[in-house]
């Protein structure tokens, strides 16, 4: 048996390792056992479905929630397309089985309202309809980033039928995360190029900015964006809270992204610059066509790691009074009906964050692999 051989080699070679395996394994089992006993007997999970809308969209008006479903359907459609383009090995059998399982689950799920069920169904169907399309359209790869950007803007546009100060929950968390990435990425590129620039003023300013931001905690940048922005902007031009928060996140993340990209830039061999110059490309063309694509490719894992960090850091939004996922959890718990159900709610939050981060991390590995073809 291969499994037994593997165990013997990795877990039970020598008395020390055997002891370690047994004690760690024992602790693990004891822990899982008490958690699952609690989860299946004591835990009162109804707090989650009862507050599901609150957790997902916060104070977004129920009669307008269709807007978010439309936005979600756009997203899942594009997601399916992207998976089709990048994840070729998901054969038709596996994807069909997966689709079926998910759809049955959605249809059979007891607690949701019929309207929700319908929308969820639609979003999933869109995903699984787009997936096979993507597998056939490999040429789409180049346009996917632009399509994602357009889809994101479109989704934002649909959602903003409701004023931003009523956005909340997981939806707000996602909007802040994605907006931050979209803004911070080009900003980071510019800062990285600035820091490696031969012009001393530009290089100095970029370095100063990067080091300053990296030297302070995120919370302070957020507070700064919260408190300071109104001081600079005229009274009648009130910038919504959410925009200020995104500005804070983006300014912060850009400094880190810049350092990753700079590492990538320095990793591009000198011969690449010379070959580009030698065929007559200008300095600007050399950077855009030759150097940056290679630099970015080499740091994709780090960039996605940063995106995951941003996603998790959005939990700080609660301290500047936005209705993000975490603050909605607190609202739910402040209801006397759900007194003392912190464990259920926070475990659920953990799960949401974990799934979000896992999806991103999986996507990163696929993109990295798909792009690996063109690397040395």
């Amino acid at each position, binding site marked *: 048996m291969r499994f037994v051989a593997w165990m013997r080699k990795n877990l039970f070679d020598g008395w020390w390792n055997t002891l370690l395996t047994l004690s760690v394994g024992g602790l693990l089992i004891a822990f899982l056992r008490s958690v699952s006993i609690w989860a299946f007997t004591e835990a009162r999970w109804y707090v989650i479905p009862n507050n599901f809308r609150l957790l997902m969209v916060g104070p977004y008006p129920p009669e307008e929630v269709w807007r978010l479903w439309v936005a979600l359907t756009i997203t899942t459609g594009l997601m399916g397309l992207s998976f089709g383009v990048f994840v070729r090995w998901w054969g038709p059998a596996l994807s069909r089985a997966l689709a079926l399982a998910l759809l049955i689950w959605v249809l059979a799920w007891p607690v949701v309202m019929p309207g929700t069920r319908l929308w969820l169904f639609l979003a999933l169907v869109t995903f699984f309809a787009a997936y096979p399309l993507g597998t056939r359209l490999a040429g789409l790869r180049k346009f996917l980033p632009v399509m994602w950007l357009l889809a994101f803007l479109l989704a934002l546009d649909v959602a903003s039928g409701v004023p931003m100060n009523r956005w909340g929950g997981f939806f707000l968390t996602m909007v802040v995360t994605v907006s931050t990435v979209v803004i911070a990425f080009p900003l980071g590129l510019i800062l990285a190029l600035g820091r490696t620039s031969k012009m001393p003023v530009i290089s100095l300013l970029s370095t100063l900015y990067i080091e300053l931001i990296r030297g302070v905690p995120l919370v302070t940048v957020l507070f700064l964006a919260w408190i300071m922005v109104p001081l600079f902007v005229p009274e009648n031009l009130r910038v919504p809270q959410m925009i200020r928060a995104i500005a804070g996140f983006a300014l912060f993340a850009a400094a880190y992204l810049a350092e990753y990209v700079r590492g990538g830039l320095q990793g591009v*061999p000198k*011969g*690449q610059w*010379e*070959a*580009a*110059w*030698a*065929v*007559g*490309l*200008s300095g600007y*063309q050399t950077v855009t*066509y*030759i150097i940056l*694509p*290679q630099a970015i*490719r080499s740091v994709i894992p780090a960039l996605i790691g940063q995106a995951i960090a941003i996603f998790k850091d959005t939990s700080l939004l609660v301290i500047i009074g936005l209705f993000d996922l975490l603050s909605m959890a607190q609202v739910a718990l402040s209801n006397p009906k759900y007194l003392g159900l912190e464990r259920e709610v926070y475990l659920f939050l953990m799960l949401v964050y974990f799934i979000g981060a896992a999806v991103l991390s999986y996507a990163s590995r696929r993109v990295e692999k798909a792009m690996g*073809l*063109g*690397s*040395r």
Partner: protein
Amino acid sequence: MEPIIRMENVNKWFGELHVLKDISLDVAPGEVLVIIGPSGSGKSTLIRTINRLEPVQKGRIVVDGVELNEDVRNIEAIRREVGMVFQQFNLFPHMTILENVILAPTRVRKIPREQAIAKAMELLERVGIADQANKYPAQLSGGQQQRAAIVRALAMEPKIMLFDEPTSALDPEMVGEVLDVMRGLARSGMTMLVVTHEMGFARDVADRVIFMDEGRIVEEGVPDEIFSHPQHERTQAFLARILHH
């Protein structure tokens, strides 16, 4: 005939290190010039001054009637006319061979894409790697990569081609295929400056051979003269070393 390259008293320093000392050199259109010499003697630096990958501190360089100076437009104009092939190929790893080849023609010469592709395929065909056009550089053998790099340079229709030890990074069995391409190019009347240790190639196709040592042109002449009757003792010593390996 008017020289296509003229260097007058060119001097170059890397910090304190004086790497080119009073180099004066004229190259005629269509001439094939082979540059030999021990490692560190300044051969690479010399040919890299011609497309100004290396700026010089003293002296004049005129290429195809354009004087090389600080003016970026002059430099870019020269680089359009001068192709270069590197020891390490330096293909762009994130682009297919075809994309490597058409990049400069479409972006710099602004040739329509279809036309650039047709031209690229014709050139790839000529060096025998048309079937590799849609692969990435890392998927090709060293010899194929170097031939692709030659095509990339040729696609700009340069008047001058610079080769910096184009076969030194290749496995021995692939040297021949690259040298064959270069022979064909020489026969077609291309002006070529070639740094190489392939003495057989030099004998075959060179119109003139230059021997460099410690930043100076020590001796020059037709291949037969240099190889059979070297005048300078440093040339003799170098050839004795090279030919016995």
